[in-house]
């Protein structure tokens, strides 16, 4: 049982307190679009962040360990590997 949490904006757009409390250690956190700019902010939600490669690349953002870069194929696979997703 794990949830895929999807974000497309920097963390300030969301209720951080709720997210910190709802996201479990087995959950996956995926950053898309302008959320890719805010890797440091999202670190408080998960040890390893997953980041859509295309969206990071066009924003000139480099993805380093412990985070992982995802293709669209990986994104589809991730939705199947988790119980359900929440697009925050």
């Amino acid at each position, binding site marked *: 049982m794990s949830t895929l949490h999807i974000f497309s904006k920097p963390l300030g757009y969301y209720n951080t307190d709720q997210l910190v409390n709802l996201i479990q250690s087995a959950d996956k956190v995926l950053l898309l679009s302008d959320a890719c700019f805010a890797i440091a902010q999202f670190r408080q939600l998960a040890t390893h962040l997953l980041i859509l490669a295309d*969206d990071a690349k066009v924003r000139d953002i480099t993805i380093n360990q412990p985070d992982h870069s995802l293709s*669209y*194929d990986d*994104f*589809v696979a991730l*939705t*199947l590997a988790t119980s359900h997703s929440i*697009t925050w």
Partner: protein
Amino acid sequence: MARFVLSLHSAPSDHDTTQRLVKFAQACLTQGHNIDAIFLYQNGVFHASEQLDLAADELAINALWQQLHEQGIHLMLCVTAAEKRGLDINNTGVFAVAGLAEFAMLASDADKWVQFK
């Protein structure tokens, strides 16, 4: 092979979300999964506005929808959301006007529902 429904919640002016939904959908198809529906809800219904006509250096939204339609994907527009927004539901291009109940039944049968916004 899994069955997906995808829903789009942001207006056509959010080009970034639109291109992402389309690429996700194409990746689903390439992997052999089924997309039972792409559903326009909330401000996403404005994608079905026949007016939509953008400059050449913008995302080619109409062409992207046309292509998904030609690939046999069921493109649906929520009539309730459209009416609340005053959209003309007699002229919705490649999008079929559908009730929320129709979508809810498709979503209930699907393995995965992924929201784009």
